[in-house]
């Protein structure tokens, strides 16, 4: 019940973020969506994810506001906008219909099939000695994925520092 209310709030905030014209207001609305998501993670009994989502959301907001400060643009639509909008809406509605038929094959909400996770829960404490099972999964049972994630972060930092460099090729224009 609380999950559905929070999801409705997130959908409303996302619709506000997409449609509003002022860029600063839409960034603040995205912050509201992320905050609602952190609360939903807490209700779904995932405390690791709630902490991480909250702090990552704050950092994402700071970076987005840095990009949009003092650059407020109104959005205008012209050209073949009727055909484009109608075809996008038709695609989205057909996607939702097929999604509904696909979601009926999943098990009911609240009854997961835990085939792999059953072994992780039983053998987590004897094999690794950690009380936090999620930490023992990401650092011991599936440590290779964490190595890939560290590589992605490193590449992103190098990419940002390379793009923002001031000295580059001087183009004659």
């Amino acid at each position, binding site marked *: 019940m609380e999950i559905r209310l929070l999801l409705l709030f997130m959908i409303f905030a996302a619709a506000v973020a997409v449609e509003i014209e002022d860029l600063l207001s839409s960034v603040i609305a995205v912050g509201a969506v992320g905050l609602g998501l952190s609360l939903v993670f807490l209700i779904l009994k995932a405390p*690791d994810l709630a902490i*991480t989502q909250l702090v990552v959301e704050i*950092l994402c907001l700071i*970076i987005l506001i840095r990009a949009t400060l003092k650059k407020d643009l109104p959005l205008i639509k012209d050209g073949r906008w009727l055909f484009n909008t109608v075809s996008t809406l038709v695609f989205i509605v057909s996607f939702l219909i097929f999604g509904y038929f696909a979601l009926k094959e999943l098990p009911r909400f609240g009854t997961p099939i835990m085939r792999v996770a059953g072994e992780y829960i039983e053998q987590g404490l004897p094999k690794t*000695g950690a*009380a*936090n099972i999620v930490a023992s999964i990401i650092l011991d049972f599936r440590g290779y994925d964490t190595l890939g994630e560290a590589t992605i*972060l490193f590449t992103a930092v190098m990419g*940002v*520092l390379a793009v923002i460099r001031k000295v580059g090729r001087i183009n004659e224009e």
Partner: protein
Amino acid sequence: MKNKEVGMTLIVKTITRLTVGLILLYGIYIVLHGHLSPGGGFAGGVIIALSFIHLMLAFGRETALKKLSQAQASVLESLGAIMFLTIALLGLLGGYFFFNFFLHKGKPFALFSAGIIPLCNIAICLKVGAGLFAIFAALVLFKGLDEEK
């Protein structure tokens, strides 16, 4: 010409002086207890980066860069990545990649337990924290936009 106030107002500066050390301490606590309670390396690393970013936003960029310059942040990030890789490769001695090579895993629910997991948490925290601070310092220092428009 030197009357330009950098950073934010006096209220923000006073509160920042009081709380920035506590935020750093909280981040270190979350990293060190990653195997006993929720948190871990990623959340703790982001919190530590946020404490330095708080300093930079409230006092201007020179004060924050004196505490942790961009070259030091790059060195810390690479150190974290190398530490993580070393711990992973040392597992090759025992059999396979990422082998938990402490044979005696310690008492459960104690602070010094769980083999390599606390060391991996510290390596990830260094990497994530220093990397995110380097991203933010580069984005804020980029002065090509606000001076011309």
